[in-house]
């Protein structure tokens, strides 16, 4: 126990070590050579990971009610009653996050050593990457809003730097700029939200703000704060309507996409909403908005992913879609499920990205899946790991994604109603379709390329294998009760979100004040579930009776699981039919011909970019033109020249006083002395 406490004192080292790595790589990296850079780069993250695992073990030894550790590094700003210490907060949520972030980052760093070995800016790359990890860990460990905001902006910066990493490429530079500007749009609201929190609560400290927000603010104010914070999350996590930067961000090196745009940074928004959940709970409206945004995002981006041909963009849209799932989970009152999905998705998506990176690497920067095919024999390791990732992603039973997605589906069904559930189940099926579309098009069929294959090195394969392992078994931390599991993730996160069972149902019925007794909620839950179920499947009275009996949510949940699994399989099957079987080969082309309009909408990603260009950019251009010609040249230039001219004239008058005569100066001095004496 004592030893455990000591481990917690080392908490600040978790972000500090990557920072050290970043500084080293920044200052000395260019001279040190690739070997040292990669040792420092990976080693610092590895150390941070090891440390967070140690802390995690000590953390598990604590009784659940003690699992809230605050750690003040130093006092940063103290102005009046505005206190902003750099303090860290370790609770189950941030614990889970730092372990995931440092772990996945470590694997991706190792992978990057292989992926980037030929790049001439190797040190710069690792500098950015380490810096990113530092900011990300700061973000998740933050103990108050301001520190979180530092991390938040820091990861945004690193994301920008890394997207534009190959800055000679015009599209990469533009994509970085786009990501920066679009997320800044959300960050602005987030900053406003922080200010509002300070105005309302008089503090920005998480602990004191979330202690009992209902005492300080009413539901209306909570809604404003929640919506402002959510706007920030929307920007960072690429939700509709600010999602357009993420697909473009695929200009970044692939490991960066895996790290930042799949596993860590984009999930910061989810983390933020989960962190601020006590405020969201106060306002059912804001929760509904979160849920609906998530649902729409999940659905729309999944449809776009169906038709894209760029392997990384498919994955990007898939990421957006999965983030939508998480927000949906948050919106329907299942934050634990959201965090669970966040973790499993991080493993699976990082794996998929790294796998696609290996494919791209193998085919000499070929990203179009139409130009792949038959890769199964050439890069088998990549194929197997990629398939595991895809299975986990699509929610095939037994793998990580299944359990987390199922938790979300269940919560949606119970709290969100049938329509939302149906939409999300369809989305789940589409997930299966587009991930397996990649697999079937890239790894099966005839080869549609003729380059010398570039085999991934060991440093690239090992992270793939490890991530595949995680993606496969990661789900077992949250096996729900019905399947005989302990639902450990929910229990672990309970100090953050309260009892998951209570939340899941009490939320919509009594509007945020989760006070309903256990029994009551059980009945409510089973009734609601049973009712919806009747609509769906025409369930028999026995099931209803059974539901009201000892197992509160047993069979309906099982049934839901079955449905989602079937849907996932159907998606996979459809992909198989379309892209592998000979008779299905013609169907995609036929469909796109037949539904040309729909196909166009999808390939143009629902015209978001075009509309934005028309609405914002063109208007802005017009405005700029106006201000340039009418305001700048006409008014400001004249004003500036006028000021300069008058100064020049005045100066020439005054300069005539400068005779250059010592006597004159002395006289003036004496005159001044006389004036002073007379004054006295």
């Amino acid at each position, binding site marked *: 126990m004592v030893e455990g406490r000591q481990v917690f004192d080392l908490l600040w080292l978790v972000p500090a070590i990557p920072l050290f790595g970043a500084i080293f790589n920044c200052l000395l990296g260019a001279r040190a050579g690739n070997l040292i850079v990669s040792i420092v780069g990976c080693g610092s993250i590895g150390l941070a990971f090891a440390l967070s695992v140690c802390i995690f073990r000590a953390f598990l030894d604590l009784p659940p009610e003690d699992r809230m550790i605050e750690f003040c590094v130093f006092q940063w700003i103290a102005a009046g009653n505005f206190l902003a210490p750099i303090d860290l907060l370790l609770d189950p949520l941030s614990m889970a996050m730092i372990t995931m972030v440092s772990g996945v980052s470590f694997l991706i760093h190792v992978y990057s050593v292989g992926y980037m070995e030929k790049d001439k800016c190797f040190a710069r790359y690792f500098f950015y990457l380490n810096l990113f990890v530092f900011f990300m860990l700061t973000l998740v460990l933050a103990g108050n809003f301001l520190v979180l905001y530092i991390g938040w902006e820091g990861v945004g910066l690193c994301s920008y730097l890394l997207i534009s990493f190959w800055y000679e490429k015009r599209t990469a530079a533009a994509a970085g700029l786009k990501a920066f500007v679009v997320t800044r749009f959300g960050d602005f609201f987030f900053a406003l939200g922080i200010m509002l929190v300070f105005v309302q609560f008089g503090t920005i400290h998480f602990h004191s703000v979330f202690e009992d927000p209902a005492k300080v603010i009413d539901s209306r104010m909570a809604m404003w704060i929640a919506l402002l914070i959510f706007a920030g999350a929307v920007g960072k996590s690429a939700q509709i309507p600010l999602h357009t930067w993420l697909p473009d961000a695929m200009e970044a090196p692939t490991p960066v996409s895996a790290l930042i745009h799949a596993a860590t940074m984009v999930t910061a928004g989810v983390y933020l909403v989960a962190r601020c959940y006590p405020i969201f709970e106060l306002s059912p409206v804001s929760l509904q908005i979160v849920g609906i945004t998530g649902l729409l995002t999940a659905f729309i981006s999944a449809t776009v992913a169906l038709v894209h041909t760029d392997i990384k963009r498919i994955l990007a849209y898939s990421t957006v879609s999965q983030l939508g799932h998480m927000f949906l989970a948050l919106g329907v009152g299942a934050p634990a499920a959201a965090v669970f999905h966040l973790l499993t998705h991080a493993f699976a998506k990082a794996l998929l990205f790294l796998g696609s990176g290996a494919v791209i690497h193998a085919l000499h920067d070929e990203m179009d899946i139409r130009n792949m095919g038959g890769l199964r024999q050439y890069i088998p390791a990549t194929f197997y790991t990629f398939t595991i990732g895809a299975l986990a992603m699509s929610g095939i039973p037994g793998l990580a994604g299944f359990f987390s997605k199922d938790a979300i589906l269940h919560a949606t069904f119970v709290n969100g109603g049938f329509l939302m559930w149906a939409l999300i189940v369809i989305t789940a099926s589409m997930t299966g379709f587009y991930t397996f579309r990649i697999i079937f098009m890239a790894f099966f069929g005839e080869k549609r390329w003729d380059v010398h294959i570039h085999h991934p090195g060991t440093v690239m394969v090992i992270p793939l294998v490890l991530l595949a392992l995680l993606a496969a078994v990661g789900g077992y931390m949250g096996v729900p009760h019905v399947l005989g599991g302990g639902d450990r993730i929910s229990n672990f996160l309970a100090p953050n979100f309260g009892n998951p069972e209570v939340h899941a149902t009490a939320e919509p019925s009594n509007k945020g004040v989760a006070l309903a007794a256990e029994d009551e909620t059980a009945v409510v839950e089973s009734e609601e579930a049973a009712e919806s179920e009747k609509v769906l499947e025409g369930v028999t009275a026995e099931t209803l009776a059974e539901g009201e009996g000892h197992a509160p949510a047993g069979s309906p949940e099982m049934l839901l699981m079955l449905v989602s699994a079937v849907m996932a399989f159907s998606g996979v099957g459809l992909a198989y039919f379309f892209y592998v079987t000979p008779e299905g080969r013609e169907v995609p082309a036929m469909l796109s011909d037949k539904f040309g309009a729909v196909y166009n909408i999808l390939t143009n990603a629902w015209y978001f970019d075009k509309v934005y260009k028309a609405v914002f950019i063109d208007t802005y251009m017009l405005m700029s033109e106006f201000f340039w010609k009418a305001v700048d040249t006409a008014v400001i230039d004249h004003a500036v020249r006028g000021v300069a001219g008058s100064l020049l004239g005045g100066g020439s008058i005054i300069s005539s006083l400068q005779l250059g005569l010592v006597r004159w100066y002395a006289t003036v001095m004496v005159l001044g002395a006389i004036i002073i*004496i007379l004054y006295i």
Partner: protein
Amino acid sequence: MEQIFFYTAFAIAVISAASVVLQNKVMYSALSLIITLLTVAWIYAMLSAPFLAIVQVILYAGAIMVLLLFVVMMFRYDETEHKRLRPDLLGVFSVLVAVIFAGVLVSLFSCSCFENAPVPADFGSIKSIGSVLYTQYLVPVELASVLLLVAVVGAVMLAVKR
């Protein structure tokens, strides 16, 4: 007795100082200045500052004035002073300075609370000055020596022919 000494010194000092200002020839000005400085040393001695009086004679009337005279003698007579004093300038500036002087006098006499204060026995003795100088003012003394060194080097640097 004191009155005689003081008024004599006063008269010599003012006359020689005026002569510094009004003499047309630089050499005469310099010689008058020596007299003024010696008189000031006299005044210092009357004001129970014997050490300063000695230093005044050695440093000012001796070293500095020798330096000045040397430089004056380096230039030919017609080069040093080819411009007479202009009476109009003298009139205007006399008025100016008179105003200052009057102001000082007025402020001096408006608070005529100055009585002769009792002076300790060895006030201003070399021993007491030295003890103050080398304890309390040690750092300034050292800095002054550095300043002198810099001045020597600087003077040489400036005056040396290149």
